[in-house]
């Protein structure tokens, strides 16, 4: 790291971003915010907080990239293959295809999880049966459909992950590379709907059969995690599922009363029947 940011620096930058662009960073844990901002500074060779403040104030174009650093993590398709295997075998293969089945992906930025799901959905022949809703926190972050910069050399990991699900190769038709951009097939986005939200799907009116929200809570303070889970729980139908990251868990007792763990290894919960 060429830039070291300290508590007072993080506070100053947070205030500046809120004043300038109305970006509220108070939900991030300190250490996550520090690491993300320092990595951002590294990319732009910004050496101290004063230079960072100056860059933010004088270069509006930097906003998009900063948002990506703040709200996106490492891009990896089919991360945790055993989760995707469980999702496929225990949930998707057992749905009643005569009834509507809707899955929500909140806070979908680069959308590795969304793309993974859409490909799996198509492989299973469920594109017409399972509708998908995904949300993004900021218009600049709604990159998933149009593609985004991705090093093709890192794609082997995605292919290997898919193969670990059940030994099959990922069909080539789903993804292509153009000028260092990874571009998903537009066919994957049939029966999908994108909308803007504030991480907690607060403006979502339709209830859903499942929510996939993996490794997003890692970034947030405990009280915010509880709020997010409470918000998502209200959107899930009785008997529906919530998938968190394998190292995430529901903390608050009132949320545990709504959602019961059905697979500890993969951190999958089921919405209890609400009378």
């Amino acid at each position, binding site marked *: 790291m060429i830039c070291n940011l300290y508590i007072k620096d993080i506070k100053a930058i947070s205030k500046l971003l809120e004043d300038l662009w109305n970006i509220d960073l108070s939900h991030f844990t300190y*250490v*996550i915010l520090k*690491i993300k901002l320092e*990595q951002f500074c590294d990319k732009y060779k910004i050496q101290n907080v004063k230079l960072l403040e100056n860059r933010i104030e004088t270069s509006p174009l930097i906003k998009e990239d900063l948002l990506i650093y703040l709200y996106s993590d490492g891009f*990896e398709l089919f991360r945790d293959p055993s989760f995707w295997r469980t999702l496929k075998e225990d949930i998707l293969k057992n749905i009643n295809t005569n009834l509507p089945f809707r899955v929500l992906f909140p806070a979908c930025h680069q959308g590795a999880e969304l793309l993974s799901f859409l490909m799996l959905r198509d492989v299973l022949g469920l594109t017409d049966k399972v509708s998908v809703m995904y949300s993004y926190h900021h218009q600049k972050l709604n990159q998933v459909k149009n593609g985004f910069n991705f090093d093709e050399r890192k794609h082997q990991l995605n292919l290997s*992950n898919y193969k670990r699900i059940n030994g099959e190769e990922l069909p080539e038709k789903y993804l292509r590379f153009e000028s260092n951009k990874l571009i998903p097939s537009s066919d994957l986005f049939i029966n999908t709907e994108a909308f803007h939200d504030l991480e907690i799907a607060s403006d979502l009116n339709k209830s859903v059969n499942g929510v996939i929200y993996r490794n997003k809570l890692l970034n947030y303070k*405990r009280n915010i995690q509880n709020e997010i889970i409470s918000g998502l729980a209200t959107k899930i139908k009785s008997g529906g599922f919530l998938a968190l990251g394998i*190292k995430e*868990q529901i903390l608050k007792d009132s949320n545990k009363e709504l959602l019961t763990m059905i697979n500890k290894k993969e951190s999958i919960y089921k919405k209890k029947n609400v009378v």
Partner: protein
Amino acid sequence: MSYKALMIGGSAGSFQVVVYILSHLPQDYHLPIFLSLHRLKHVRNGFVEALSIKSKIKIVEPYNGELVKAGVAYLAPANYHMLIDIDRRIVLSTSSQVNHSRPSIDLSFQTAAEAYRDKLLGIILSGANKDGAYGLKKVLDYGGYTIVQDPDDSQIKTMPKAALDLQKPNQILTKEELSIFLNQLKQTKG
């Protein structure tokens, strides 16, 4: 100086050293131990079990947000960075790789250094890349105590040598000396 936490970073060739160190520490060791070790990203099971065979200390892969406890060794989970927040909770992250690594030893050391300042003991072991060198320097910068495994005692010298290129650590020790040092620390400060 009484320390509040011990962090060990290592990569290729460090596994046997970590096993040796853990097997010689008492069950009621007075510090939490963070193990930021490079590992295969897609292999989730087996590492804790392998480390636990000879260890008297409980070894866990933490969940995000766990509060740190003395006498527990926290192994960075596969494919996650393990960070220490200033409230001394463990925060995991799926952010991009650092030094081609996730977990990144640099990130673990850097964040623990700020959280524990002069109460952190940092150790770099054998490894085949430079991850951890910068982080260990941050431990020293914050007033913590740093130890590098003697490159001549290391199966792979790259990581200890990279650490030595960036700083003059408080000590350079073999694995046997490391074990004695950590046990004496217990006897003196416990």
